């Protein structure tokens, strides 16, 4: 248990998450018998990181940082040191799959977003060629019949517009899954069909919905038979979604959770720079609410797969930079620089605050997950979850190498945490360098390459029960990530 969270009052936090009742009614005996499901949370931040400040450092008095003995880098130390035992830092993982993708570049951010959880050549410049890992997992958990009421959840804190559509989740080739950008809507979507079971009163809603559904099933069947091929596809897709919904809703009332409070949900989306006005704290409240929703959804087993995306534009009340920080600061300050050079640059303070905000958000997410008892006595939700923190690029120079990946939570003991895994780099092949060099607005292609991120995706898939040995482009996937 995280001591910081403890001190602010675990019960209060649980209450705010709507989990107070659930915890209170669970006797230790029942709890001990419950095998916790495995969950995975994808935590997305934009624009890479400040490499030299991100990397773990030697402990004071030591000369090298090793796998088991290290302290966090300056950028993360204040916020994440309390969680260090539950973290794994991965250094020298590269998105080799982008080096092998001959599809034209398209948007430099979008290209890497698409590759991030697919590791596969794109269909078109900003269109994925395969399903993304999160959706592969969601599908496998819920096939052949739904296991959770929601296969997966996707939330984005910067919405609607250029930065709102992080192209991360794909249900199949070319099938983009747009994230929800509005907290109130996210809440309603999650809880609108949630019926609070009353003790001693049988719930009739399942039987009633079944009767209605039987009529609809026949109606959609008849309509489908009358359609031309194009329209038939549409009607059949609708019928299939109705069928999924019917199964999913029948899973709802067995839960013993209480809905969290909706009143703190922000009701206006965050728009890209200059298009909207924000009160101070708007971003924090939006991000906080998504974190609460996901924590609740995991704890109540409404879903086991979720994505929280914190997009690239962060306003002045956080960064101190009044303008488009992406154009004004990120590009000019986050390339490969040594620490002293970086710190001496004009505008460093803004970009420091920018990346620090992401770290704080990650830390508070871990705090929430770590405050909810789950599974075996003494375990928390964080212990039965893996949170994968990634950015789709290594640095602000749009470099798909040196990815700043962090894992948190051991996934029920699947991964050994508290480690710093630094992988070897090798010489880049001519093919890798040639394709990467074509990008017009990215930092120069490096001479070396680390291990492929596809391998990490395989490890995460294995953790979630997918028995696979390769994912995405087989040319840059050699199996699970070694040593992880």
């Amino acid at each position: 248990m995280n001591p910081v969270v403890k001190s602010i009052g675990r019960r209060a936090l649980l209450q705010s998450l709507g989990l107070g009742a659930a915890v209170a009614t669970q006797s230790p005996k029942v709890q001990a018998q419950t095998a916790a499901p495995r969950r995975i949370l994808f935590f997305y931040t934009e624009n890479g990181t400040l490499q030299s400040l991100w990397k773990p450092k030697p402990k004071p008095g030591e000369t090298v940082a090793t796998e088991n003995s290290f302290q966090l880098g300056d950028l993360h130390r204040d916020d994440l040191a309390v969680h260090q035992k539950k973290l794994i830092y991965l250094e020298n993982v590269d998105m080799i799959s982008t080096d092998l993708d001959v599809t034209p570049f398209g948007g430099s951010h979008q290209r890497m977003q698409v590759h991030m959880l697919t590791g596969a050549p794109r269909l078109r410049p900003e269109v994925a060629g395969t399903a993304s890992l999160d959706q592969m997992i969601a599908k496998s958990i819920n096939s052949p019949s739904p296991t959770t009421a929601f296969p997966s959840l996707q939330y984005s804190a910067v919405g609607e517009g250029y930065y709102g559509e992080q192209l991360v989740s794909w249900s199949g080739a070319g099938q983009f899954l747009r994230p929800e950008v509005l907290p109130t809507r996210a809440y309603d979507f999650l809880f609108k069909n949630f019926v609070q079971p009353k003790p001693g009163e049988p719930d009739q809603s399942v039987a009633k919905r079944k009767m209605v559904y039987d009529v609809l099933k026949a109606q959609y069947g008849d309509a489908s038979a009358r359609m031309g091929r194009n329209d038939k596809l549409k009607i059949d897709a609708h019928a299939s979604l109705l069928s999924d919904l019917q199964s999913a809703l029948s899973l709802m009332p067995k839960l013993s959770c209480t809905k969290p409070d909706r009143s703190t949900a922000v009701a206006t989306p965050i728009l890209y720079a200059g298009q909207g006005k924000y009160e101070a704290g708007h971003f924090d409240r939006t991000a906080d609410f998504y974190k609460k929703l996901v924590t609740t959804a995991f704890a109540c087993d409404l879903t086991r797969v979720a994505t929280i995306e914190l997009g690239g534009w962060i306003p002045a009340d956080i960064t101190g930079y009044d303008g488009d920080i992406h154009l004004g600061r990120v590009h000019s300050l986050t390339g490969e620089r040594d620490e002293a050079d970086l710190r001496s640059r004009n505008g460093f303070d803004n970009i420091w605050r920018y990346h620090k905000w992401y770290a704080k958000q990650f830390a508070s997410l871990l705090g929430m997950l770590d405050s909810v008892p789950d599974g075996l006595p003494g375990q928390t939700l964080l212990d039965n979850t893996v949170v994968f923190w990634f950015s789709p690029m290594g640095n602000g120079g749009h470099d798909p190498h040196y990815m700043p990946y962090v894992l948190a939570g051991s996934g029920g003991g699947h991964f050994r945490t508290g480690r710093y895994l630094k992988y070897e780099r090798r010489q880049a092949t001519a093919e890798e360098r040639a394709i990467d060099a074509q990008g017009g607005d990215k930092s120069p292609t490096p001479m070396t390459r680390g291990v492929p991120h596809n391998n990490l995706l395989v490890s995460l898939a294995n953790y979630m029960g997918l028995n696979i040995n390769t994912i995405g482009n087989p040319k840059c996937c050699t199996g699970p990530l070694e040593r992880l």
Partner: protein
Amino acid sequence: MHYSKATVVPALLFGLGLASCTGSVAGGSKRPSDGQNNEGGESNRGGADNVEGPGWGGEAGEPGKQVAVDFCVDHTVKLATPHLTRLTNTQYLNTIRDLFPGVTMTDLDLPGETRRREAFINQGEAQNPSNSFVRSWATNAERVGSVAAEKMSSWLSCSTDTDEAGCAVKLIDTLGKQAFRRPLTTVENQRYRGLVNAARAAYGFKEAVAMAVSALLQDPNFLYLIEKLPTGTNATDLSSYELASRLSYFLTDTMPDTELLAVAESGALLQTTRLQSEAQRLMTKPSARATVDSFHQQWLHLDKLAGINKRNAEFYPNFNAALAASLKESTAKFVGKVFWDEGGTFQQLLTSDHAFVDRALAPLYGVSAPSTGMEWTQVNSGQRAGLLTQPGLMAGLSNENANSPTNRGVLVLEAFLCTAIPSPPANADTTPVPPESGKPTTTRARMENVHLSKADCKGCHELIDGTGFAFENYDAIGAWRTEEMGMPINSKANISAGVDIDGDYDGAVDFVKALASSADSQRCFATHWLAYARGIATTDVDACAAQRVVRKQARGSLAMREMLVDIVLSDEFRKRAPSAI
């Protein structure tokens, strides 16, 4: 004469494949001659003072006029490939409102709708079912069901005290017919009665009503405008019920009212005169005003006006929330006023010398403010002419720091001239270059510097900005100006979009007058309405169909309300093509 008759068409069509501007720029609607008979500069395109000429067809032989080449040689009706359309969010909510009069529904939640640039929200092809829609419809159906069941007496006239079984039959017959916009088939009737009876036995009548309503509101025959597929390879007439649905959702964004449903039932709606009178009747309903408003909102992307909430205080010290609200309101009111209350012609829409002015807007127009509220006021006709010079629209197409010739040019080209503009390359930095205090420069100069100095940008921006520069006299809040940061304004523009008004113009008033009388522009306007009427992309509208609709009008004056009726009477509206696949 403003109008150059240079050989602009080939230059435009073939000269734009530059570097990153690889999208094609071409007429938005299908031109029959494309690729077959490209006459380029030798065509009869030319003066806007010759509107009866090219594009109007069949008007040859007038003394002193050029002999017109019929724009549409082949007048065969070519229907767009049909795609199943579903109710838009507005239509869905309106229909529920009208199904249950006397019942107030709140808290109905729907996901946002996405819209393709070349189409309206009702484009069937883009309306793919999604998880969020299906979930929302399910939740809403349950909510409406339980509220409606509580207040059944306000929408179903029958006594449940004496005859529950009779009420159940009536419920299915009456509500079912309204919800499906046609009588239920025997099979459907039995299916729904089966539900009501079983539910009544298990949970009581009220609950049975709630469940029946819930099912009806999720039924494909409610959510989609389902039309019978022609059995052969030829287009067939819609049934009278299908036609009633199209008509009602086109003109009033809701289900057919009792009268229309009765006309459909009698079959009389299939008669042209009756269809015409029903269209005219529906257009007198308040909901028709909302629909026309919705068309204009989407056509002109007026939703962007919502973004006028911030202006750089250094350059726009007088900007405030009250002005932003007035800008939005006055533009919306202007469209409604011209369409319904004034003459209602396309020409008035584009050239009217009146505007809605209140205390906040008066300084922008340089007129004296009305004592209270917003009044229909004559404005300086040397500075303003109609819709495109509305401060609201001009401000909506601007940025925080400055006006945007690019936004303005794109709107004119796409919405008024049906000229497709490719998106900027994905790696283009589209952040506007802001003015800097102490460095006097004009927006135009900054734009020319950025856009026209690079080959990558110039290909498209010569056309886009060249058009948008006509509006340089309006700043980022739509106020008239003759200088910017002390530098004189240059609003000379050159349009070279391969249209009948290609040429040089001196400012917006000069330009919009030409636009108002341009045959291409009127056809483009009709194209947008046809796309809206049929739920298809503007690029799928047959240009000849648009021309037929325009040509029914008195020459040189396109009456908009009449044009809508003509659209209803057209084969495009009354027939259905077989599915292509």
